[in-house]
């Protein structure tokens, strides 16, 4: 099996490992690092459930080969809470009832997080654009948008 060694930072921790070159970032996060918060949905870039932040930008971890993440800084949903306290975005998702089954939520959070990092005061249209690549089959999106809006208003 063709292997490649990669070194990257995941949620602030340096990680080095050897992985088969066919593995995607999604596989390495979930299988090798046990970070199963990142979800596997469609595998083809349509649902956004696998979204993580790579070097400051939201990406589909199902469309990035693990080898391509060599040297990168990765943030997953597990890295949002600090010292046991939920990140404000997460608190608002709870407060606004933006979570039903929860499957899309890690992706929604990471897409919203990337948006806020780049643009601390996005308007409704910008929020919608940021999560346009994330499908949710439960909430109807409204509460998710409200939760993001509440986060950026404070």
């Amino acid at each position, binding site marked *: 099996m063709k292997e490649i060694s990669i070194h990257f930072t995941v949620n602030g921790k340096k990680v080095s490992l050897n992985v088969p070159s066919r593995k995607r970032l999604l596989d390495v996060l979930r299988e090798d690092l046990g970070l199963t918060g990142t979800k596997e949905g469609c595998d083809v870039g349509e649902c956004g459930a696998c979204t993580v932040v790579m070097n400051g930008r939201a990406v589909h971890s199902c469309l990035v080969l693990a*080898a*391509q993440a060599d040297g990168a800084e990765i943030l997953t949903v597990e890295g949002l809470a600090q010292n046991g306290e939920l990140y404000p975005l997460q608190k608002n998702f709870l407060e606004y009832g933006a979570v039903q089954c929860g499957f899309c939520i890690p992706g929604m959070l990471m897409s919203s997080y990337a948006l806020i990092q780049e643009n601390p005061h996005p308007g409704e249209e910008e929020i919608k654009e940021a999560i346009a690549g994330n499908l949710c089959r439960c909430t109807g999106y409204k509460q998710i948008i409200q939760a993001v809006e509440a986060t950026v208003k404070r």
Partner: protein
Amino acid sequence: MIPEIEYLRPGNLQEALQMLSEYGETARPIAGGTDILPGFHINSRRFRDIKTLVDISNLPEITAIREANGGVYIGGAVTFTDIVKHPLIREKYPMLADAAAQIGSVQIRNRATLAGNFVNNAPCADSVPPLLVYDARVTVRSLRGERHQPLGEFLLKPYRTQLQPDEMVTEVFLPPLPAGFRGEFYKLGRRRGVAISRITLAVLVKMDQRVIEDIRIASGAVTPIGARFPELEAQARGKTAEADFLKELAIQLGEQILQRTGLRWSSAYKLPVVQQVFYQLLRRICQ
């Protein structure tokens, strides 16, 4: 499933070209991977022979956007996000920025490259119609040398271009646009994010009072590949932009699309839409 593959990461362009030349047909450059990886996943025939991926996404020689010769050079690994954010492209080539902003989703645009979009050459490649009306030229490199070609010649048929296995698109050049051109890009898809385009149109017009001095028209998704309409353009030059003539032009656009594609199950829906949208675009641009 992603098949067993070998992954190579060259440190510079020269190394990348050496790898492509050494591995030939079984190697493929990968940048954003937004076509190749889903293609692997659905076991697409187009990607079945790939044994080796050469990662070009971080090659310094092809990740920049630069201004030169009055126009803009866009590196072969520049992403759509880079394009959307670039002030010069937004100012001088707004239809490209517009098309780029509507491609896929944020996550896709953060990875997918302009060159990858037209090298893949899907009929619905959104960047192609704007690039065609801007008379984009591509620079193709291999160990054998470098060649330059208008994009319209480089694209052959759906999923086929003139790119040889040992070659790579290193740059796209957008030449300076003569003063006075105004244009618009139109896209129709089924969903806001991640929609495969059903119809795209890019139109640039230069008016002299009420007369169409020059015009460039390109479509995507409704033609086998993104393409210009030279006969239509020739016919419109020098004509007065009155409603009757613009309507006539829109009818002819529909007829030419039909000639190029043949009758499809979707024609009954798409053609009237294309004609109507094209007419309205012309009305807005020419007024």
